[in-house]
């Protein structure tokens, strides 16, 4: 009980001789204490600060939190009635933003429409592209076949062989036998052979 009476009268921090300042401030004070001759004056000021801090602490601790600049009721009413965007003047920008956003949304909508259209057409294109690729493959095969046809043209092939016969500038029986066999294989008449031979020799 004795203790309770003393706690009511005396401050606990003063009784324990403990500073109520923040550890950082105390650290700075200790560093200053190690410094120049103005330690004592600074220490007195610090004590004043500590006292003031204690006074603040007493007042804050003694007085209830209800003593604020704005009563709780007013704050609650303002929060209920006032739109913070309106008070901040955010209504215009909102409206302008709405216009802009409308424009932007229109543009985006246009893009979205385009995208949708693209998407739709893309899907169609994908299908069509897929179909075209098949057609392209078929066309390529046909072109390849068409390209192979000239290569497989008997006259051209025979012409190629006949040109090779004269490479050494001398015609011998073996080459003649080969060309005769090729004529039979390629169904080339002797008249055609002579025509091709003339073309080769007169080039």
């Amino acid at each position: 009980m004795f203790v309770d009476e003393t706690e009511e009268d005396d401050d606990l921090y003063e009784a324990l001789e403990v500073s109520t300042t923040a550890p950082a401030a105390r650290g700075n004070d200790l560093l200053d204490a190690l410094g120049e001759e103005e330690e004592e004056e600074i220490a007195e000021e610090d004590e004043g600060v500590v006292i003031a801090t204690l006074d603040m602490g007493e007042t804050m601790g003694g007085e209830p939190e209800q003593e604020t600049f704005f009563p709780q009721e007013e704050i609650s009413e303002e929060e209920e009635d006032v739109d913070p965007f309106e008070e901040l003047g955010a209504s215009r920008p909102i409206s302008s933003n709405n216009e802009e956003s409308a424009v932007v949304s229109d543009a985006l909508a246009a893009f979205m429409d385009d995208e949708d259209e693209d998407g739709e057409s893309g899907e169609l294109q994908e299908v069509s592209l897929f179909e075209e690729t098949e057609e392209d493959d078929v066309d390529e095969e046909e072109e390849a076949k068409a390209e192979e046809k000239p290569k497989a043209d008997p006259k051209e092939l025979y012409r190629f062989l006949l040109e090779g016969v004269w490479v050494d500038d001398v015609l011998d029986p073996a080459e003649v036998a080969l060309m005769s066999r090729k004529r039979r294989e390629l169904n080339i008449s002797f008249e055609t052979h002579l025509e091709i031979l003339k073309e080769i020799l007169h080039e």
Partner: protein
Amino acid sequence: MTILFKHALDLAWNDGRLSRRGAVLLENLQDFLDLSDYERGVIEEKHSDEEVPFLITRGYGSGADLLDQWMATLLDLDEELPLILVSMGRAALERGITKQGWIDVFRAAEGMGCEFDFARGVWEPEYEVENLEWPVALAPVANALGLTDEDE
């Protein structure tokens, strides 16, 4: 036909001079071989540059007689000529025909209307060819085909 007309020029200029009769025979041969003026001009120009300057003048165009005889012999080969050309072609093939030899003789055979027969003798090995002796009148053809070296 080039080798034939060149041979005719050699005969016509045999003694170092060309007689009027020889010139007329050359005109006739040009028509027979169906030789163009340009082709004849090329052949005669080359002959004038390469042969005539080295000729020794020995007469007054007696070569016309040789030309007339040669042309007569050639024309007399009418029915035999195709067979002879086939045989010459086959013989030449067995020795090996040069490209220029083929071109010259084929054109000469064209002039005589026997190019197909000559070509068969060369290019159709399955075509049976009778081995014939060729007349002197076809000496230009034999020379072009390289058939005269061994005979000589």
